[in-house]
């Protein structure tokens, strides 16, 4: 992976300690990012997010399916992430699978909420067409095209943008459908329903290097981390998920401090992301 000399390591650590990182950022500043929506026309919604050297694409595809018997009033959402070998030669063949599973798991954990569906970024009950019979299955696919650290935050942002961009075809249920069989549905071609994505949380990862923690770490900085905490925060400032990575233990008070910092950072990120998404949507409509 990243082969760094002792001097380079000291340079990175020293910079973080002095609140001036190697690329000139402060500890809690994000790299400039750029959102592009509608990049995959075949999908119901898609977005590409570029965060410094990190480049990810998320697409949303909706298919009609059957709700699970335990939750007949809810649709299903699946999140898969793939790491393209273009991002790093180590992802060749099956090499990217481990990271892909970890990222998919973390995103599901952060965006889909608890078992009862509380705190989910996506309102699952809005995906139901006929209760217990037909619902929309959302397949969210993430693809890492280029990797320069902080993949989780970038993927989270891309999924939020893709969901905003998503149009679910309006479905008419044929009246008088028999009770037992699958009801006949008529999928409209030109009428689309938009998602309300204001509840979709953003993910902020704080990476701890030495005694300090930074946001939006690059690949080099991530190689120096002792541990990292990813917090997903909704627009109302509530915590929707939290995951700790890295082996080193943390003092409970440090974790609480990190959560409050993450909440603070998330507000700025959410505003920035929302304006970027609406700009991208406006640009897409124009062209």
């Amino acid at each position, binding site marked *: 992976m990243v082969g760094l000399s002792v001097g380079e390591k000291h340079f990175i650590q020293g910079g973080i300690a002095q609140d001036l990182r190697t690329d000139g950022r402060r500890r809690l500043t994000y790299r400039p990012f750029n959102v592009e929506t509608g*990049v*995959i*026309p*075949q*999908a119901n919604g*898609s977005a590409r997010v570029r965060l*410094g*050297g990190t*480049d990810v*694409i998320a*697409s949303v*595809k909706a*298919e009609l399916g059957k709700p699970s018997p335990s939750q007949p009033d809810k649709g299903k959402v699946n999140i*898969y992430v*793939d790491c*393209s*070998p*273009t*991002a*790093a*030669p180590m992802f*060749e*063949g*099956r090499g990217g699978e481990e990271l892909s599973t970890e990222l998919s798991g973390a995103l599901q954990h952060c965006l889909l909420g608890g078992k009862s569906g509380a705190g989910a970024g996506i309102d699952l009950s809005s995906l139901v067409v006929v209760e217990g019979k037909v619902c929309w299955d959302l*397949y969210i*696919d993430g*693809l890492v*095209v*280029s*990797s*320069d650290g902080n993949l989780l935050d970038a993927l989270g942002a891309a999924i939020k943008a893709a969901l905003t961009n998503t149009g679910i075809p309006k479905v008419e249920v044929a009246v008088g459908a028999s009770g037992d069989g699958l009801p006949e549905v008529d999928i409209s071609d030109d009428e689309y329903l938009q998602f309300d994505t204001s509840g979709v949380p953003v993910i902020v990862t704080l990476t701890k290097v030495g005694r300090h923690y930074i946001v939006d770490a690059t*690949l080099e900085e991530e190689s120096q981390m002792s541990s990292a905490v990813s917090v997903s925060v909704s627009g109302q400032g509530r915590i929707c998920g939290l995951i700790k990575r890295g082996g080193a233990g943390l003092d409970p008070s440090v974790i609480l401090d990190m959560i409050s910092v993450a909440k603070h950072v998330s507000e700025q990120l959410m505003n920035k992301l929302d304006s970027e998404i609406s700009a991208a949507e406006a640009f897409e409509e124009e062209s």
Partner: protein
Amino acid sequence: MEFVSPEGLRLDGRRPMEMRQIRGEIGAVAKADGSAFFEMGNTKVIAAVYGPREVENRSQQISDQALVRCEYTMANFSTGDRMRKPKGDRRSTEISLVIRQTMEACILTHLMPRSQIDIFVQVLQADGGTRSACINAATLALADAGIPMRDLVTSCSAGYLNSTPLLDLNYVEDSAGGPDVTVGILPKLDKVTLLQMDAKLPMDIFENVMQLAIEGCKAIANYIREVLLENTKQLEYRRGP
């Protein structure tokens, strides 16, 4: 099915000898040694090149030339129906091999003995002609990585439907089952490095179709040359006087 209307227009409104809009861009992947984005109509691919570097697996090392490797992957969302298939299926393996052989033919491998060059191509959207688009993207990425080549390789496909030779088939035309000739050429040396066809065609018609594909390749080569020239100008400008 009618693929060419009486007015001489194809399903997507092109004329038989018209190519889809092509667009190439250098530098899609920041961490790679060379990378490019290439678009032919709705077919979009990204190529990244890593190397020349030390050979990872010592047993594969070649003492008098470079080892070229290639992997072709399709994104889950690249096709109309969402599919989730295991990596390394037969089609991907075959296309990986085709791209590797084509690129190996143009890279001056003897200049970089005991080293390895990796070419990764990722299909973002598939709408026919992915292997041509991948080869074109790989050429751009190799040039961006500064890897010595005999010439630029460019590739284009042509087909024969409704008794008309058609340039640059899209997915609908490709899946019609007619002949599909994919050609890769070295435009300056005027040599063919890749030729694939999977149907029956009379000899004289085949020559016509292949000639059409070659013309397409040459047009792409001109475009790629322009992109590279523009990129070099940019680099020169950024370096300053």
